């Protein structure tokens, strides 16, 4: 079963980090990704550009309305994701807990809807 692990973190704090800390976290992410791959649980993963690059689109009455910024202003912003294969929620939670950003932000664990 697949779970999407959504990584939420406070962008301002992320951007305020010095280079050494950033490199250290980057290394941690690399080690983490490798361990997920080795366990055969890796499906996909990516990091996102900050919300300052985000655009929201809605179509109302057949007309597309485009606005600057993310869908909702929140304290923590979506910054990346992992798509993993796990036996059950407990396993997905234990993978999520090892994501480096779990220490600073929040990981949302969402099961993928399997259409039959």
């Amino acid at each position: 079963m697949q779970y999407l692990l959504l990584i939420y973190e406070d962008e301002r704090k992320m951007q305020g980090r010095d280079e050494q800390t950033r490199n250290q976290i980057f290394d941690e992410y690399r080690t983490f990704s490798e361990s997920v791959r080795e366990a055969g649980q890796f499906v996909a993963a990516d990091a996102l550009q900050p919300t300052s690059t985000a655009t929201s689109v809605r179509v109302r009455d057949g007309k597309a309305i485009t606005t600057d910024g993310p869908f909702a202003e929140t304290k923590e912003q979506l910054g990346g994701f992992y798509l993993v294969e796990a036996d059950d929620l407990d396993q997905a939670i234990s993978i999520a807990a090892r994501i480096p950003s779990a220490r600073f932000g929040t990981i949302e664990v969402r099961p993928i809807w399997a259409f039959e």
Partner: protein
Amino acid sequence: MPASAHSSLQAVLETDRVRILSSLIRTCGGDFDLAEEALHDAVIAATTQWPQHGVPDAPDAWLLQTARHKAIDAIRHDQRKRQKLEELGYTTELLREEEELTPIPYDMLRLIFTCCHPALSEESRLALTLRTVVGLPTTGIARAFLVTEQTMAQRLVRAKKKIREARIPYRVPERSDMPERLEAVLLVIYLVFNEGYSASSGEHIVRRELCAHAIHIGRILSELMPDESEAIGLLALMLLQDSRREARANAEGDLVLLRDQDRRLWDREQIDEGVRLCRAAHRAPPVGAYAIQAAIAAEHARAVHAEDTDWKKIVRLYRQLLSLRPTPVVALNHAVAAAMAYGAEEGLRLVDSLAKDLDGYGPFHAARADFCRTTGRWQDAEDGYRRAIALATNDPERRFLEGRLRETQEAVDH
């Protein structure tokens, strides 16, 4: 249905329902609804078959076996469910014809841990535990938690849907996760207990029964996990607190303070069991927060008269509790005990530092007002009782505080 078959069915459901259901949920691949419906069908089958063919030798095994067959029938009619179970490798388990079909007690642990999974909301955990572990009907749970039956039914549906769709596993957590997960289970049990305990006598009989249900689950848990001292500590705590149920309210339903209670009304048998379990919980260090609270309750239970209470010992226990649970409410209880042991001035000194955290908490203002009254600070006492009355959550508590306020005002007038 003849009385004997009927009473046999009642008896087996009373003693074995949760064991049968918990085993059934496992063989149904963690599908609560499928298992509940199958058991329901098996019970209906028993009402027609037992009077005709006699009560089976092992009625629990009969119910489990029959329910399994009902579940298999249901799966045969539901293509989608079958695929899902096959994917999980469960149909083989369900279809396997075993010689021994007695329910496994260990399955009850699976059930309890799944119902109390931290991925479920707190209110869902309470509802699901009462529905499946205790077997309380939805109407009963709704009444106990003062919500409509429809609201409670939806809550249960949502919880079971999350278990199914997010695939919350039906198992006992691994050793490494056990401390956190056991804490979540104990909290659910204690919350159920407190829902019943905080309800006043006479007002909500249904809610009072929650205490008995919580004790029942606590018993199952501590029997299945005899090495977990906190499970035993919690059971001891609940037994000791509940032992005072008859003395906690007077005939009018008004609250009676611990020191004014008629101690002859306390349930001695329950106290003895509580004290014995409390000792057992303290024999296996590290001693946890429930075991310490049980020891405090045991100290009260031991005192033949209120004035015999060893308050200094209780202060020491609260200090120990504070080191594990440094919360303002525990600090308030510590202050109240310290006032009993060392005088109201000491109590005042300790509570004043809590004013900021506990300003919206009625018992804080009531305790502070008590200390002020004892030390002759009349105006402060009056103000405190007024705040406490405004914050009171139930009528008996409000009536009690209004009595206190009147006494204080009369004392000033004289």
